[in-house]
């Protein structure tokens, strides 16, 4: 299902993104840029997993226990 692809984004952002943002300036929220970038992805991961949880039919009411296999 397509909503699951969202979960790939943090892997891309953190693993592939860091080489391009490996610098101190500009500070973001007082943090070095590369650290702020990682923190941003941590927060986004949480948001993304929230969306995945919402769209995942496995979490609908009444389907407790039975996982929908794909």
């Amino acid at each position, binding site marked *: 299902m397509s909503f699951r692809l969202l979960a790939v984004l943090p892997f891309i952002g953190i693993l592939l993104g860091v080489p391009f943002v*490996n610098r101190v300036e500009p500070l973001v929220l007082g943090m070095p840029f590369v650290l702020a970038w990682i923190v941003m992805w941590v927060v986004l991961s949480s948001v993304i997993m929230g969306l995945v949880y919402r769209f995942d039919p496995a979490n609908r009411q009444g389907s407790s226990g039975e996982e929908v296999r794909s």
Partner: protein
Amino acid sequence: MSSALAIIAAVTLFALYLGIRARHGHDMSLEQWTVGGRSFGTAFVFLLMAGEIYTTFTFLGGSGFAYGKGAPVYYILAYGTLAYILSYWMLPPVWRFAKTHRVVSQPHFFTRKYESASLGVLVAVVDVAALIPYLVLQLKGLGIIVSTASYGAIPSSAAIWIGAAVVTIYVTVSGVRGSAWNSVVKDLLILGIVLFLGIYLPIHYYGGLGQMFHAIDAARPGFLTFPEKGSSVTWFQSTVLLTALGFFMWPHTFGSVFTAKDERIFRRNAIVLPLYQLILLFVFFVGFAAALKVPGLKGGDIDLSLFKLSLATFDPWFVGVIGAAGVLTALVPGSMILTTASTLLANDIYRGLVKRDASDETVARLARFFVPVVAVVAVLFTLHGGETIVALLLMGYSFVTQLFPAVICSLAPRNRATRQGASCGIVVGVAVVAATTLFKLSVGQLMPFLPDALKDVNIGFIALALNVVVFVVVSALTQPQARAEQSRVHTH
């Protein structure tokens, strides 16, 4: 008795009381003792899983790493996040299988999945080899914390014996329930302390977070970004990926999965746990604040940076509160490791190797008998182990990561992997890890022809790659045999 010591003693006694009290109303069968009767709700499972992040390693080591090495510390924040995303899909099927087959430990999971007791024994041996150094690390941290925060009144060896006695008692009585109850207190305390220190210290010493990082960048250019060589960006990428895969393979973390009462808990936790990790950020801030204020700590002493700065900043009673929080960061993960290691020895090594038909009651009794044994072994290692233990610890994480391919394949609706494939893959992976760690080899040394960037790839990848190759090849070769055996089992 100083005020710091009084506070540490009071919190330790409270932890002991709570750990024992946790048993109340539950008779301790094997399933109750090891996995809390599979009855824990979102909060307990959350705290047990988060327990993995807030150990003495992160409390002392996280700040020490930031203090001593700078930017590479960022990786700690990244790997947990990716591991939690994976957990959304990985943990529910693990939990379902464990519930159906009444699995109580990680080797037990392998034994049932691959229908092979010897694979279970192999995994149990790998697990124990990884767990004991981890427990030793917790005890070492405990010793450092208590002796520093008590201003030397209690020598670290005495603190280690006392701490080990406390966890032994409450683990023997309450098993995983003791860990769960204490993790509530631990997380509340650590949350408050770390937030306070991480916000207060940069403001107090530098006037603010931005000013602090500007000052560090001016004094030590390059400290706040990944360097060109060594702990470079390539090192970051490979280490984050490798540790994210290994994250849930730690037997005590894997075991905490079994305590949940339903599978939706894991999906819900996957949303919140990444955010919860951000508390580590404040641990880093403490380490960075110490970098310019208490310079000069070298080698293993960098782990003392948080306490050195606290001693220089606060009154003794508050150092006591920090020390007490530090003690709990050692006791709670220590108790989980102790429960897990004892279960492994009794359920998987004894029942798997010595007496296949041992009853659950016998195993439960034996597991509790192993608690003080494991604790004493760990204490002796802590006091007399010297440097070898550091090498063992570095291996621990890479060891458990070798279990990942076999776990993932076993979750597929039709598992093509065979027990022979899984065993050979794990043996090869573990052997490569041991060899490369003991001989201190790096990818750059092994393959000098690689471009510079690739030389910093985490050596663990070589082990995992060889593991996967062997796993796939041996599984392919043993396919027909496995099928024949399976049909024989079915005709029984």
